[in-house]
């Protein structure tokens, strides 16, 4: 489309321009009419609430962030403070070690196990592990296909090779794939 400063438009260009303007006017009028109806019929009350909510959120988020850590990341710092809580206490005034020290009696083999190491013990004990991953249950697919709007559902899989960095001090790739030796899990202690 040539700019309006150029030489007079050819009749065809004029026609095209006319068409475009009419379509544009029509579209604008459509939107105006719809919005007018929504406003008049009182259907937009939630808009103000939403705006207000966003304003409050922005204000509080900014205020909080400044107040607590100049320049730091809010969530991360809080997470750090909560987790190891170096020197801090919880809401009941207690402190807890990094690895839960409770002793639990394993319901599979009957041996006493430290709570913080219960999961790796149980995995070996039950003979489960990576190799037992073949089937996808109904539950894992049921939750995914709904709101995909025609696009193939994204699928999740459990995340592997993980070390839970905030908690137990265990290196990566720790599992032996359930070799069932009921092994010596003290080898996991770094």
């Amino acid at each position, binding site marked *: 489309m040539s700019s309006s400063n150029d030489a007079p438009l050819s009749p065809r260009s004029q026609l095209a321009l006319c068409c475009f303007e009419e379509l544009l006017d029509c579209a604008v009028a*459509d939107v105006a009419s719809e919005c007018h109806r929504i406003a008049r*019929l009182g259907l937009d009350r939630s808009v103000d609430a939403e705006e207000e909510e966003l304003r409050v959120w922005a204000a509080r988020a900014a205020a909080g962030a400044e107040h607590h850590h100049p320049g730091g990341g809010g969530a991360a710092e809080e997470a750090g403070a*909560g987790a190891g809580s170096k020197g801090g206490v919880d809401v009941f005034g207690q402190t807890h070690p990094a690895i839960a020290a409770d002793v639990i009696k394993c319901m599979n083999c009957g041996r006493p196990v430290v709570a913080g190491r219960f999961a790796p013990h149980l995995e070996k004990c039950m003979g489960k592990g990576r190799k037992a991953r073949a089937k996808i249950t109904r539950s894992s697919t049921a939750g995914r296909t709904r709101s995909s709007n*025609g696009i193939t559902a994204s699928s999740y899989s459990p995340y592997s090779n993980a070390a839970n960095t905030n908690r137990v001090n265990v290196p990566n790739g720790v599992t032996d794939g359930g070799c069932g030796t009921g092994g010596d899990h003290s080898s996991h202690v770094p």
Partner: protein
Amino acid sequence: MSTPSAPPPCPHLAAHRLSSRPLRFLRRCLRVRPLGRPEIRRDPRELPRCSPCAAASPSPSPRLYACLSCAAVFCPSHAASHASASAGPGHQIAVDVDRAELFCAACGDQVYDPDFDHAVFLAQSSSLLPSTSSTSPSPTPRKRRRVDYRAWAPDPAEFALMSSADPTTSASAAAPAGLRGLNNLGNTCFMNSVLQALLHAPPLRNYFLGDRHNRFLCPRRTPVRHRAAEADATKLACLACDLDEIYSAAFSGERMPYSPAKFLYSWWQHASNLASYEQQDAHEFFISILDHIHENIKDDQHKSHAQGHGDCCIAHRVFSGILRSDVTCTSCGFTSTTFEPCMDISLDLDVGDNTPFGVANTKPHVRNGERGLAGMNSKVSTLMRCLERFTRAERLDAEQKFFCERCGERQESLKQMSIRRLPLVSCFHIKRFEHSAVKKVSRKVDHCLQFPFSLDMAPYLSSSILRSRYGNRIFPAEASDADAVSELSSEFEIFAVITHSGKLEAGHYVTYLRLNNHWYKCDDAWVTRVEEHTVRTSQAYMLFYVQKTLYYKACERAAAV
């Protein structure tokens, strides 16, 4: 947001209504095209023009009105003169030829009339038949069985029992009841975070604390056979019983962290594909345990409509809602509707895509306002926008043509989701983990999500979506689809937020709980009190809202729970 209400008519409209036939009779003048607006019927060759304009210049005006009294056509600039100059009264009201909206030439503004809207609605619905009458049999929302009210007062023995109760079991000034840390058993923060949210979901909490599933009396626990086969072991493990035990432990008043070892063991017996010592996805875990609870305690008599009605088990009773999916043929307008039960709603996190060119962009001014006043970059998404996007009409890919019954062939189509029935507890799952099968990479979307503490789900209900599809016309309730009737309110209050921090491969889940209008952070064994802004700035992964009628809000006295 509520149903549209007709504003009081301007004096000209009121006068017109008194003097002329009801506007309903204009129905025969209307024509509705598939997926189009209702408009005034005209011959195919006929081109309405504004007579005064035509004299002045040949170009047609984009907006034309037809006088209801004399059918003269004019453009907005000549409307007022027609109203005043024409002979006889009643020429003030006209109708927009292309949009079927009433216009008062004397006021110079669009006006609304329920009768006329009713006519438009009838025209639209009759053009869409048979879809509105032959939708796939929807599970009509059966009225939930109500129990007759019987007054009750404690007898002396019960009274004595209550008085003698250990004060630490009830809420104390220090912390609300049921607040207790959960030990991490080795990469089990995904489990702890979900358990904390479930522990404080009011309907679920009330169910278990109300002894509705007693782990000592559960039939599944009674060993029927003595073989040690794993199949039988699975039968013996009842997740609902283990959950009952966790509730008892959490509300016992004991404050030292609890180790949900038995629950983990039972869950691994059920979900062997997920049974391994490594980090898991909290949402996947959530769906998994709800499913297994259903398997454990479902009432087999209700199998046929089990999931939709939620009478089969407590998991469905609390979390199950119904989603409505409408697929509309773009060529003839025929709509095919299906209903499916859902336990939660997974939402895409729309990042930076804050240009809402949905089918009904109703708030352009607010968008600009938000961008300006938030002062933030486009990385801020809001839950409401995600829900809007979820319920937006989307054009399906050309490859996925839908077979239209009316056309008899595959056509391009639009798909729109809406919520037919809300659950007691709405769980929103924010899709932060993206897996691209093509690029073979997975990544986490870190963007912040703003979410309200009080949420009104009305705009996302099927009734609202349908109404806006029909142009937000005012029509009497009985003329509308049965979807318009909803028993429960649509207002929700947040009570738990599960957040994820860190990377996709190595991250940490934490739950924030809202009890007595204070926020508590549950980080495995560590429970601390936090301020609102911490919650607001966290990376929400799963959000739990409960119907407002079930939520006791802002009790400053810590004793109330």
